[in-house]
């Protein structure tokens, strides 16, 4: 008996070899185009976000230039090279976009991105410390994550919050390679998620969030290493147990759940004592909790931060 199984891939989805064989030319063309286009690395002229108030949650440090923030990115959904998100996310269209907030909540809600933009927006200048040993100072625009959490009302059994990034290899070419276990997942303890510093970001430098920085909606958790701040979020789930993040799954001995910036706990393969602020020559000392200890250290009182790294 002949059992016919439908092919996994529809013929219509297979790239025509003629087109496939032009891929190098296509990439070269794209590279040439981007070189020509030089500075504005977004396809559309960046839209200003209106009515943004300046927040007091702001550090008084020199801002990292916009060009550095938008050309030096870790966003594996658009390639593992730091220069590639700016190129590969160029034509990403972050619309229509909804964020589903569900799990252990009284009112599970799906928010439309355009409605979220109507929330009171504020500008906050935060430090960003990457686990790789570099840092930036970024004027984010957004609203506290707690604004959303309050609306869905977490139940008493909710202890953690899980964030999931869009999983769409057609739009996010980096997901076609199994570098990480897609979709990208991150997590926070509920009190961390509710902390006033935890920001849902919709823009930077006064404008709508560039694609390569996690459009249209990302987290900014300034006292944790950058990878904790999930990008292009489509789902927020309140759960009872600590979620296993993509990086914990990838290399459990190198990445812990908390990932608080800590100069005393090295990455197994490199030191975390210092960092290079992008644009500066000499390295500077890394501060515990990235300099936000006064606001957040109490959440970890009594915990062995070497164990809970």
């Amino acid at each position, binding site marked *: 008996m002949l059992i016919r199984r439908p092919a996994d891939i529809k013929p219509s989805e297979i790239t025509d070899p003629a087109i496939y064989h032009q891929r190098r030319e296509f990439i070269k063309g794209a590279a040439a185009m981007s070189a020509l286009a030089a500075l504005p690395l977004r396809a559309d002229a960046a839209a200003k976000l209106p009515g943004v108030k300046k927040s007091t949650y702001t550090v008084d440090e020199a801002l990292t230039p916009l060009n550095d923030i938008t*050309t030096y990115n870790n966003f*594996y959904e658009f390639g*593992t090279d730091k220069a590639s998100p700016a190129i590969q996310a160029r034509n990403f269209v972050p619309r229509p976009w909804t964020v589903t907030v569900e799990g252990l909540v009284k009112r599970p809600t799906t928010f439309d991105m355009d409605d979220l933009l109507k929330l009171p927006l504020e500008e906050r200048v935060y430090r960003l410390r990457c686990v790789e040993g570099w840092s930036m100072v970024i004027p984010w625009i957004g609203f506290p994550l707690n604004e959303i959490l309050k609306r869905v009302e977490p139940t008493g059994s909710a202890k953690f919050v899980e964030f999931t990034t869009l999983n769409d290899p057609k739009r996010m070419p980096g997901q076609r390679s199994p*570098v990480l276990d897609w979709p990208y997942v991150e997590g926070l303890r509920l009190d961390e998620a509710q902390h006033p510093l935890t920001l849902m970001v919709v823009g930077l430098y006064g404008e709508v969030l560039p694609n390569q920085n996690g459009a249209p909606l990302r987290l900014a958790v300034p006292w944790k290493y950058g990878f904790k701040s999930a990008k292009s979020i489509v789902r927020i789930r309140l759960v009872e147990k600590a979620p296993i993040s993509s990086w914990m799954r990838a290399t459990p001995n190198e990445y812990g759940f908390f990932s608080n910036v800590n100069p005393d706990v090295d990455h197994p393969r490199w*030191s975390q004592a210092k960092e*290079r602020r992008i644009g500066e020559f000499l390295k500077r000392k890394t501060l515990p909790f990235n300099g936000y200890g006064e606001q957040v250290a109490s959440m970890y009182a009594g915990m062995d931060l070497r164990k809970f790294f």
Partner: protein
Amino acid sequence: MAKVALFFVCLIPLGRLIWLAFNGGLGANPIEFVTRSTGTWTLVLLLITLSITPLRRLTGYKALIRVRRMLGLFAFFYVCLHFTTYIWLDQFFELASILKDIKKRPFITVGFACFVLLIPLALTSTNAMMRRLGRRWQQLHRLVYLIGIGGVVHYWWLVKKDITQPALYALVLALLLGYRLVVWAQARKRVAPPSAPTSPTNFAPHK
């Protein structure tokens, strides 16, 4: 003439870095860029140097041997730039933190060891040293196999997650070293049992 041309070709990676530096082309993290670039070219030149012997045997183009030393010395040149970038631009001569890095970070330990092992090879690369050391010269210079492996390991351990690039270097290195292993095994087979048939691939005796 060809040698002079190759000399200038080997300087292109350095020229590119200088050009980029003066044109703001090193990106948001220039020191990382220079460190990566000089490291990459060290590895590339090491692998090219290691490919000379197989290429010479496979093509029969003996003149290739004449450029091997220069390629090896250029690998050493780029590793010197790589090491200088690390101790000067990256660590700014902070000896304590450099020593700690070398001791504690396996990828730096391996990288540093390879750099140190390359020094005697560079020093003994002259004709006079070759004559003076005789047979021992070749024994000493076999260290380059170990250095090649160490170089790839150094790269592999430094990468955060996407190991595509180091894996490519590892593959090329495996081919180059594997070729030597096959040649060596065949030569042994030919020498050992007197009744064994001679191999159809007639390699020139090891010199």
